[in-house]
């Protein structure tokens, strides 16, 4: 079945010169394993082909169940020369959460959540 990343992860984005960067966070270790498998640099580059003119970098961080993405040449040269309403790339994280991935129903039952697993 297809789910949105918003159904299993959270994200924040920001800017540095002409780069937009996104932290993508699984709610738990099961979700993190799926993120690592599905959300590749290639998929993210395709997802953001409409803004990112340069390569996408990907840094998984097992210690905090997160993946850092950096979109190069994604802000029309930088926030101070961008024509976009979101010149600072603040909403790029939301756009990533719209990405759809394929998971099995068993997997979905384990990872779909919009809050931390209660202890």
């Amino acid at each position, binding site marked *: 079945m297809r789910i949105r990343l*918003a*159904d299993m992860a*959270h*994200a*924040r*984005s*920001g*800017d*540095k*010169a*002409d*780069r937009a*960067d996104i*932290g993508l*966070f699984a*709610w738990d270790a099961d979700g993190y394993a799926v993120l690592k498998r599905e959300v590749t640099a290639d998929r993210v580059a395709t*997802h953001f082909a*409409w*803004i990112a003119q340069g390569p996408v*970098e990907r*840094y998984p*961080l*097992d*210690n*905090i*169940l*997160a993946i*850092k993405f*950096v979109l*190069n*040449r994604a802000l*029309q*040269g*930088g*926030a*101070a*020369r961008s*024509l*976009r*309403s*979101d010149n*600072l790339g*603040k*909403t790029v*994280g*939301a*756009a990533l*959460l*719209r*990405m759809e991935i394929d998971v099995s129903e068993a997997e979905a039952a384990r990872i779909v959540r*919009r*809050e*931390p697993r209660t202890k």
Partner: protein
Amino acid sequence: MHTVRIGAGLGFYGDSWLPVRASIERGEVSYIGSDHLAELTLAILHKDRLKDAAAGYTRDLVPMLTALWPLAQPRGVKFVLNAGGLNPIGARDALVSAFREKGWRARIAVVTGDGVTGRIDELRAAGQPLAHLDTGADIASVRERLLFANAYLGARPIYDALSQGADIVLTGRVADAALFLGPLVHEFGWAWDDWDRLARGLVVGHLLECSGQGSGGNFGSQGAWARVPDLAHIGYPIAEVREDGTAIVTKAPGTGGRVSFDTLRQQLLYEVHDPHHYYSPDVVLDMGTLTLTDLGDDRVEVAGATGRPRPDTLKVVAGYEDGWMGTAVIGFCWPDAYAKAEATVAIVRAALAEQRVAVEDFHVEYLGLNAFLGPHADVSGRDDLNEVWVRVAIRTADKRVADGLGRQFPWLALSGPPYMGGFHGIAPASRLLGLWPTVVDRDLVERHVEVTVTQ
């Protein structure tokens, strides 16, 4: 065991200082580190300074400290702020004058030397290429259009100012996290080559430099953001730091917001490039070794970060003139709202072409429909929208063209598609600035850095 509590001030020029009151009154902090300078802010301050040579610092400095100093002074709370912007001396003078008027006494330090605007040719002559950090382009291509250039200084001059007894330290451009690392090195006496402790201090600074983003604000998520309690009374993050650099991040009792594993790791990775090599002037931080342990009750322990030796260069960001932006926003009501907005944009675009107006980029966004999500927006309801607003933005080298964009729209109220409403007026042109990130040998900057304390 000696611990130091340090609290977050502002996260940008324009941020609220009301939450800082709770950190001072109930958060038992000894320091407030306040970051007024986003990457873009020097561009805004440059525009201010064109109008008034005494400006160029962030104008929130005086009202903020006028509100907070009476609370801070009896408790011995010190401030480190980069509110100096492009004019730290001007900021110092304004603050000293405001304090004298009130009859308040404070030792105010100012750090100068980050500005290299007037030193570009000297640095080039000294063998610094100042090539664009990302593209490798030669700075000669923008040399004539440069407006400002500032190096990111580290924690050392802040440490020096505190060691000289400063109560308030004002800087220009410093690495954001250095606003917090400086006080920690001062308190703990960490060696400047104790890379792991410096790295842990840098993590603390990074978690606190964006005010409410370290305590549940802007918690990027679907649904979960709504479970962060009482954002109206958010408490900015406070770190309780131990001598080994281990810290507990929390917030003042009775405040809103949330400090948790989830809210804190969003801030940890915010505006970070390679998390294994997070460059600062004082240390290169590896975030891959640290742990965030949620202790509950808005307390998260941060431990185990490691560092590598600091770079031999400092980052410099310069700004240069890069044309003008003209914008216009106009609304249409059902029926056919989207089709009419699209048709109107086509008419304006054709008119600009017929008038042989030089436009480099023509950017169209349908506000409320696809301005943020682009091709990932759900536009299935596009043909039956209740209303839609279209925003047109153009890039041009000619200010008059940018100023004139808005005038292409009003006549269409009578001669264009029906049910147009809410024209936002004719917006003046905005100056566009390019940012030029580069590096410079640190010694060439640091020999010009001065710390001056005023009683």
